[in-house]
């Protein structure tokens, strides 16, 4: 009875916010049960997550096991018990906002840097004061990514971006200099598919971004201070129309296909059915197991056009604005920012390209692929963190998918631009 009451209170809070979206509300409260800790199941629990004397960190299922040992060791050194709780990655951000608002969230959370805009508008995180010499310890892309409206909000530890994988059996140009070269090399190699790039019916602007930017498209312009300007939205403007033409041509040629989706893009490449793959460091393990020789390199642009600039996503730590142990939480952030210990332990358990420069040097000779990704990230654009970005994904993806499928490129891209503008308001 007691337990039922508690979870019902948690559920009640969710039900209130999620309204009749029972599916989502239900799964959110289920999460609470999964994590097992007081933090996420405690809609009405007395202690909540970040109770005093217990530093609670939320992380997704992949990063939590990597973080736990080093975080616990840090806690022992500093005299506080550290608890790492697993929250499914796709629900982490919303759960964090909701739990923090209700006063029973964690002290720290891990997450992608492009959450910052939404976390700030919801008042969910506190700013972080990075040490003055942080540029000696952390790569510029990491610092750029966690800076939002002139304030730093997180401490980065890993960076993810897209690169080009080439199957040596199917192409003679493992590091093509231009996109045109990529196509002709794959055609010459007789591959079943030229390029494996997920699109599907909903589109995938994240993976399409290198092509979109190389052809001149942009998402948001920058204002005088270098902050992204939501009123200067590039979808539907000239550059994006040029990109739409390119995407349409590639679709017609069969280089881009709606039938390649997030579910099959990596497996097509590892099964030898595609000469090239555009994907991130998460594909490395599968590709290494595939048993053929491959090369990872930066994604080429179109001949005579801009360089391809994929998105960089930076994984970071954030301090909750309602942290019960804000003192220790800030201490943890400062320590992670200045010493590679935590990042190193996490790299060993889950090899993502680190932003810590010392760690990069250490692994430079042992893990060339990860370093290629880390270097590619320096040339990439940090994913826009402004809340307006969430209005982009849906319409832009659909427009791109429809253009690949044969829709008239200009009207489709312009319609997406109008829809996004309306949504940003």
């Amino acid at each position: 009875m007691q337990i039922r009451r508690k979870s019902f209170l948690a559920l009640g809070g969710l039900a209130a916010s999620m309204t009749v979206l029972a599916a989502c509300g239900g799964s959110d409260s289920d999460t609470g049960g999964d994590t097992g800790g007081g933090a996420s199941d405690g809609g009405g629990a007395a202690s909540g997550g970040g109770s005093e004397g217990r530093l609670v960190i939320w992380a997704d299922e992949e990063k939590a096991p990597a973080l736990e040992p080093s975080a616990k060791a840090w806690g022992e050194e500093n005299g506080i018990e550290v608890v790492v709780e697993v929250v499914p990655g796709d629900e982490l951000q919303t759960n964090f906002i909701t739990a923090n608002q209700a006063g029973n969230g964690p002290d720290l959370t891990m997450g992608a840097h492009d959450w910052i805009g939404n976390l700030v508008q919801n008042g969910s995180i506190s700013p972080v004061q990075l040490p003055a010499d942080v540029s000696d310890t952390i790569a510029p892309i990491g610092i750029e990514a966690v800076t939002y409206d002139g304030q730093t909000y997180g401490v980065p530890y890993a960076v993810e971006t897209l690169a080009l994988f080439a199957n040596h059996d199917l192409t003679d140009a493992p590091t093509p200099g231009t996109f045109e070269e990529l196509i002709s090399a794959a055609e010459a190699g007789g591959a079943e598919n030229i390029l494996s790039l997920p699109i599907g019916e909903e589109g995938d602007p994240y993976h399409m971004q290198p092509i979109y930017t190389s052809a001149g498209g942009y998402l948001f312009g920058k204002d005088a201070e270098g902050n992204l300007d939501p009123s200067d939205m590039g979808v539907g403007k000239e550059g994006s129309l040029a990109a739409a033409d390119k995407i349409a041509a590639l679709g017609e040629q069969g280089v881009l296909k709606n039938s390649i989706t997030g579910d099959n893009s990596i497996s097509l490449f590892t099964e030898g059915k595609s000469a090239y793959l555009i994907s991130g460091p998460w594909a490395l393990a599968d590709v290494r197991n595939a048993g053929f020789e491959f090369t990872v390199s930066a994604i080429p642009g179109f001949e005579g056009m801009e360089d391809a600039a994929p998105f960089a996503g930076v994984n970071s730590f954030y301090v909750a604005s309602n942290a019960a142990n804000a003192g220790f939480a800030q201490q943890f952030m400062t320590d992670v920012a200045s010493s590679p210990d935590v990042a190193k332990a996490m790299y060993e358990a889950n090899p993502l390209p680190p932003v810590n420069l010392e760690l990069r040097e250490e692994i430079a000779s042992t893990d060339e692929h990860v370093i290629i990704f880390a270097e590619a990230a320096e040339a990439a654009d940090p994913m826009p963190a402004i809340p307006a970005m969430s209005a982009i994904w849906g319409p832009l993806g659909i427009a791109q998918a429809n253009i690949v499928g044969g829709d008239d490129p200009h009207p489709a891209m312009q319609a997406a631009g109008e829809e996004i503008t309306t949504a940003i308001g």
Partner: protein
Amino acid sequence: MTSTHAPVHRTRSTSVPAMVTRILVLGITLAVTVFIAPVLISQQSWMWLTVLLLSAAGIFALYSTKRFVPGKYLFPGTFFLSIFLILPIILTVGYSFTNYGDGTRGTKEQAIGSIVANSVQQSPDAPRYAMTVATTGTAAEGPFELFLVDPDDGTVYRGDTENALEEVPAGDVTVAEGRVTDVDGLTVLNAAEVNAVYNDLIELTVPVDDSSAVRPLGVNQAFVGTTVLQYDEGADTITDTATGEVYTVGLIGDEEYFVDSDGQRAFSQSWLQSVGISNYERLFTNPTVAGQFFSAFVWTLVFAAGSVLLTFALGFALALILNDQRLKGRRIYRSILIMPYAIPGFISLLVWSNFYNQEFGLINQTLGLNLNWFGDPTLAQTAVLLTNLWMGFPYMFIVSTGALQAIPDELTEAARMDGASPLQATSKIVLPLLLVAVAPLLVSSFAFNFNNFNAIELLTGGGPFPDGSGRGSTDILISMVYRIAFGGSGADFGFASAVSVCLFILTGVLAAIQFRFTNVLEDVN
């Protein structure tokens, strides 16, 4: 009824197990109430506190005496009905008149607090001190004073909110490993104690000059920083102390924000406000939204009705065939047919979604077709119905098999004797009898499919999106609401609530019609 019966009843109702159960239930109720009430008070959730106290009082009033016998039976159902059904509906209706969503979750005070707190800027050239907190009082109450060691030259400073930084003579404090560990006449706080009073310490800013101050950072460091933005409560404005710009509260759309002198939104933080009926206005007056709502509604009806009819037709047909005594190995067939039902729905939906892939999918490859299943609206809708048929027919098969076995064979035999063809016997005798038992299940299956979010989201994701709009060709109402609530500019719970209320009314009307329908069936009988 003789008088001798009454005492027997009375003794039974106060038997020992009954008494113990009653005491246990009331005791647990009391314990739960006492346990949760302080939590709710500390969280200031007055509404849930009222609910808790009222239900606890209700349980005590009803179950502690022997009176209110009907009440004893009515209470549990009513309680759960109101908590899990009626209250969420009331809350949904309430939220549909607000702007609740991302950026507008909290109060105005919280938004201002967040804006001001986020404006603390570290002075670029100032040192980062090693900090020690000491007090003349207790570690929990203070008053607190900061002792700072400059890492560059080892100079020790002290200060608090009133007293600016001053250098401490070397003899007064003990410095070890670059930090103050002991102060004459003062208690030094350890890390855990500093952490415990951290929220008070943040208020403790030791002025360095006119604009900047030393602030604690973590449990053993301090930095020099400036709070760039200041809130003026009297004028309800936020002032930028660096540029002198004043931000006032202004309307953007129908929501209040802090805006600059040009009326542009200055900060993304806003707060929960009542927006009247503007969510409903948006739904009914915006031609695209209204159009999407209507086409989603039509497809929802087609999808739900189609799913029910198809699954029932197939399930019933298979049940009829396998009910024939002449068929051998009926058990094996039956077990095989139930297989789809045994696979978790999530998995089969995801597997099916890959089957339909135009180029690499099993269906096109096996049949040698090149159908663009998920790219063509009609084909995508067909694919959704086919998959739902595969997922749903075993249920109808089981139900029909059960119901068929309850219909005596004599009835069909009698019909055959009277000259009815097998088809006539089935459609005129068996089917009507079967429907009496099965109709309520068909109705509930319709209601289930009406809100069958998973079937759409996991299979097609709502796609394709031929006109580039937010509603896909296979989006039913609930998946469209989901897209509205979580797409666009972040979560828009207010608008989604308004859509949900309309959805609720629609479903209510449909349910009423369905009940009429089942009543008619029973009347026929």
